[in-house]
């Protein structure tokens, strides 16, 4: 196995190019390092991103751009995006957040930050030998293989995520994570919602984006809920009906953390609380 940590993005792409299908791209190492300790990936080349200058947060007028290797600790203290920073602060414990990266969280296909990022309409910047492309995260997730794997699911093997671009929302935002403990705990179900209203004092919803985790292992937008909310005020009766729509979707997935049965129920609780937080 080879391990390289190139100091430029072209260097990273060149290193990956010698074995795109086999190369493991390492951000913070919070997913790959334990797998390697456990004996997996023994002969696969590793390209590490920590020296490639991909860390940093640029706050622009309408959006914030996070370099792919920006640590979750720093994402968690970003004032402009409260639902995203709140979600980042709930991933792992403090030491995990000192290493885990926003790019890795997205590229894993199953990271918690995908839920608020979907609701905020975020994009990823992907570098390849033809330059940089911006891709909406929901479009990226549509191509993810299931079950999500650490092998950059959804990102073409010869390319790498270099940034996550998040528009600033003019609406209200919310993120709710349901888990068995308060901190340092994997997610059972989560919901994120962004809504703009036609007047500052209540009014009806003019734009809604809702994302869920729990009905499937890859986070997704709940478009039926979004369509239902348009033109409605955010009151309890509307919230209850919106949550009931999830019954028609079924789903839920099982793992060591929770059963599919429990996840279907907790996805509804998460959605209910997230929508209530928009009041």
């Amino acid at each position: 196995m080879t391990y390289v940590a190139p100091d430029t993005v072209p260097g990273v792409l060149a290193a990956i190019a010698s074995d795109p299908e086999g190369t493991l791209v390492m951000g913070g190492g919070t997913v790959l390092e334990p797998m390697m300790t456990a004996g997996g990936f023994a002969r696969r080349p590793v390209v590490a991103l920590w020296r490639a200058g991909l860390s940093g947060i640029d706050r622009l007028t309408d959006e914030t751009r996070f370099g792919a290797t920006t640590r979750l600790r720093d994402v968690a203290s970003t004032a402009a995006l409260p639902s995203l920073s709140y979600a980042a602060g709930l991933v792992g414990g403090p030491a995990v957040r000192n290493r885990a990266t926003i790019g890795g969280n997205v590229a894993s296909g199953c990271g918690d930050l995908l839920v608020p990022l979907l609701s905020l309409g975020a994009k990823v910047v992907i570098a390849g030998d033809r330059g940089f492309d911006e891709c909406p995260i929901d479009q990226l997730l549509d191509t993810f293989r299931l079950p999500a794997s650490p092998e950059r699911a959804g990102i073409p093997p010869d390319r790498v995520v270099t940034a996550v671009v998040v528009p600033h929302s003019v609406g209200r935002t919310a993120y709710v994570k349901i888990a068995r403990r308060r901190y340092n705990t994997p997610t059972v179900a989560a919901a994120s919602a962004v809504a703009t209203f036609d007047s500052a004092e209540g009014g009806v919803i003019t734009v809604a984006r809702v994302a869920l985790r729990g009905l499937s292992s890859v986070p997704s937008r709940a478009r039926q809920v979004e369509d239902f909310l348009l033109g409605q005020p955010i009151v309890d009766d509307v919230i209850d009906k919106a949550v009931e729509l999830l019954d028609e979707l079924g789903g839920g997935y099982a793992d060591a953390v929770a059963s599919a049965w429990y996840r279907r129920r907790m996805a509804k609780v998460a959605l209910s609380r997230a929508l209530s937080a928009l009041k």
Partner: protein
Amino acid sequence: MNERVTLQFVVNGVQVATVADPVTSLQSLLRETLGLAGSKAGCREGSCGSCSVLVDGQLELSCLVPAAEIEGRTVRTAEGFTTPGEHGLDPVQSSFVDQFALQCGFCSPGMVVATHALLADCPDPTREEIIVGLSGNVCRCTGYEPILRAVADAALKLAHKTGSIDPAQDGRAPRSPVEER
């Protein structure tokens, strides 16, 4: 066989040089190459915190740090905090003893390191700040309350303040550093 790289770094004030597979964990380097068992191998996946160390002053889990990233860095393990003082222990360690904050002791080295990291950033933490600061460290024995008191006690010691930490109090007494604010 993986290729190995030469690494030079500082551990507990001592310059070390070694050769290692670049993706070997720092935990493995510390325990197996350097014989420093204070970084405990609990979960080996970043969930339990028992391998906590400081790297350049920052709280890290040694099971998550690849050896390749440690070149030129300064590492401090639980063993690196013992200094002459009360019982030969540093203020955090002696607070843990005084407050009965350890039983089996497996989580304790990691808890001591995490406490140092917390108090360096936040010398006068509230109860909630202590909980968040130590949220990456799991304990199966104590139920955590004695650990919270130990951290509050250590905060007072390190700030050279006096105050009372009464285990019978529920945290609402005035001037208790464990009260919620």
